[in-house]
């Protein structure tokens, strides 16, 4: 029974570890190992390494697992993935050009900078490894951006624009009839999706200029933008202006929050572009953004986290007295 179990991982369908090998499958390019779950009868394939010996392959997988484990524990890239090796392992590792060896401490690891062969990269371990490598390069990129003040401002601007673009603009009213009819007809209009893009652009520009130039610039931006828009949109701006001004003031006073939101959305776009899938790698990036902004603003990480937790409640409080408005909680979101 013990031999049958954990032949290789767990069943991708039901999660059972009651798994057996179920034959091999030869293709032109490579050979696949078939597995069968004894619990749910699901059958699946995994690649078999042909250019690497089975012993070396097992060693590589162990090194990858060690790397994932260390990165999950938030060790630094330099310290992650080192596996103690014996003489036989050393001999195997020496033949692989994507491994590095620390002879002094008799340990080795997969070199994070080298390119892994396809048959290793296509394994679960290989894909998570590459997710961590991608997340590290995103973090490096973000650190680079933060060193240059102009790039940092641009990143925040782009991030905030993305946040407003992806936001869901839902409206509420305390009781039926509080919302002006022209506003209601506009947001119920099928064209609202198109109009809301302009709406989001206005909000983004207004917010960004406030952070950069201060609250006094609100009116001028407001005027500049709305003059170009249609009259119905103007009515929404007119009506939401009091609550929007309060929100601008709130974010002007808590610039760390808006900088975090901008940077986190900027980074999130990169996470999507790079296709980082493993949650451990995604949360690593997220935690790093918290660290960067906290350091930049000279506050404790935990303080920033607790302020971020309270954003929604704070926004709700700001507009408590209004009779209708936008659900700002669906706009100022963290995308993780």
């Amino acid at each position, binding site marked *: *029974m013990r031999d049958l*179990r954990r032949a290789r*991982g*767990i*069943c*991708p*369908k*039901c*999660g*059972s*570890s*009651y798994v057996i090998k179920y034959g091999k499958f030869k*293709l032109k*390019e490579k050979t*696949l190992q078939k597995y069968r779950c*004894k*619990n*749910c009868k699901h059958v*699946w*394939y*995994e690649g078999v390494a042909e250019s690497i010996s089975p012993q070396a392959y097992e060693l590589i997988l162990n090194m990858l*697992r060690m790397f*994932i*484990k260390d990165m*999950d524990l938030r060790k630094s890239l330099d310290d992650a993935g080192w596996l103690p090796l014996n003489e036989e392992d050393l001999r195997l590792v020496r033949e692989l050009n994507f491994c590095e060896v620390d002879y002094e401490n008799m340990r080795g690891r997969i070199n994070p900078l080298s390119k892994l062969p396809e048959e290793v990269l*296509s394994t*679960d*371990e290989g*894909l*998570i490894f590459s997710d961590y490598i991608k997340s590290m390069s995103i973090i490096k990129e973000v650190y680079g951006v933060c060193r240059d003040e102009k790039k940092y401002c641009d990143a925040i601007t782009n991030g905030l624009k993305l946040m407003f673009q992806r936001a*869901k603009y*839902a409206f509420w009213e305390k009781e039926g009839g509080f919302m002006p009819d022209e506003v209601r007809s506009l947001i119920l209009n099928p064209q609202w999706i198109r109009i809301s893009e302009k709406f989001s652009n206005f909000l983004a520009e207004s917010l960004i200029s406030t952070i950069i130039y201060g609250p006094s610039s609100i009116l001028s931006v407001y005027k500049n933008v709305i003059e170009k828009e249609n009259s119905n949109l103007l009515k929404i701006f007119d009506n939401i202006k009091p609550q929007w001004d309060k929100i601008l003031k709130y974010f002007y006073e808590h610039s760390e929050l808006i900088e975090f939101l901008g940077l986190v959305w900027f980074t999130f776009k990169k*996470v*999507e572009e*790079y*296709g*980082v*899938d*493993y*949650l*451990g790698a995604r*949360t690593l990036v*997220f*935690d790093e953004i918290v660290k960067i902004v906290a350091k930049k603003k000279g506050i404790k990480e935990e303080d920033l*986290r607790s302020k*971020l*937790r309270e*954003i*929604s*409640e704070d926004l709700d409080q700001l507009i408590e007295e209004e009779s209708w408005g936008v*659900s700002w*909680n*669906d706009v*100022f*979101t*963290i*995308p*993780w």
Partner: protein
Amino acid sequence: MTSLRYPGRQVRELRVPLPQWRWPRRDHLLEQVYRRGPPPFNPFPSVQDIVDAALCPYAVFHKFYHGYHGALIGLRGDEGEGIQLGHHFHNFISFLKTEIIAGRARPDDAQSLLGRYCSSQHVDVDTENSLRSYLRYWLRRKRESLEQLRSQMPRVFFEVHVASINVTFARGVRFPLSGIIDEIDTTNRKIIERTLRGREDDVEPPFLKDFQLWLLWKIISSIDGDAIREVLGCIDLRDYELIVETPYRDFRIDKNNPQFNEWAEDAFSWINDLATGNHSRLAIAISEAWRNRGFYNRPCRYGEEIEECMMRNACYYRRRRYPERRSALRSDLRRLYYALFNEQIWKHDLILYQLAYMEQCPDIALRNELRRLLVGKSIFPVKVIEPLNGENFVLRIDEHLRGPLSEVIQDEVVNLDIVFGSFSVGLRRRAHLDIDNPRSNIRNGQIVVSVEGPINVEGLNALLIRDSLLLREEPWFLKRLVQRSLFYLEKWGLDRDDRARAHVTIRFIDTLFGSGRFRARVEDHEPH
């Protein structure tokens, strides 16, 4: 006795305890607020939710947003069968005890009764054999107590549903909690949690089962004595013995374990943060839950997953390269997960709050308003006239409810439960209205109901729990199915990359969520 596997907090960070739970307001309870967006109150957690959060906070996330069921399982390899086995084992023991108490069977008949049970429940041969071997162990040490049952004829209740809005722990903050107690023996003053988990040579209760039983005891201890007396015929269950029963041994549980208080408050805090409609709070809670995954003295890691966790394949699933835009797909699906979860709270958890407030709220006016709102819509108070056999009961319906109930019967997907007793303490079972039965006649206010699950009719008769409720819920669990399907789609892919690259669905996803191109193939007969 407490499991030795709880040496203390080594891995998990201490959670900031909640100053207060997010309760539904009066206007939410009275349905005077339009249901939209994230509900401004927390879900009504079950004991299983709390145990899962104690096992791993990230399991709660999968449960709420990906439609998973409980996380905690046994140490057997055949998890899927294990759940069924445990269910059948407990059902059979309750059936056996009921038959012995009623004088219809003797302890020696246990093996033959098992055969009868298995054929009535269409249990397959492998499961029956497994059940038989577990039963052999159980009978070795229980023969004497079964003989005692015959002579003593105690009052025993199985699968008792308990719910309270007044559960408190060390810090005195009030929480809602519901659960199902496997067995309450009011004669011998015992509360029993039955499980197949654990091994023959175990000297400690199965992992977290002691905590689960303690939570159930906390719920019933927080319920008003009169409500309990009406159903169970006793008032105070605080000094009852708590026993976790495996086939091999009974473990007596210490009620004064300070760790249980800490874990419970921790779990409520995780649930509060992960069930929030506040996106920024949720994003932070997700990253914290991921960091704290696993249980108190052992983290869960890739390649070293926690075996007891049924959701490990949700965290560590088979990874495939295609579709390449999985990350963008997930971002879009996330909104749907949240929306589906919100719907479940509005539909299911709110009704749990309404029922609990209707019976336990100190504000009598609110109780009456809730009763007026719910009767004829979600609940139909009925009286049990007589049991026809172990499964069927004749119910009497009040005149003013006959019309609404007739309408409910027209609904093909009606989802009804019957609660013998009250929502706070009662025997809650799935029910089917048997309108074709000759004894059924809604016009005359009489209907026969067929009930699933063990019911000790003799126990019921002794107390004559006449006041019962037919409880109607919308099929909220379908949202869970949708969540699970979406999560399956998110993880889906093909093992063979050569096929995946050309697969139409994968190409479609990559085109929708990325810059891929998707072209229709030009058929031969069409002009080029």
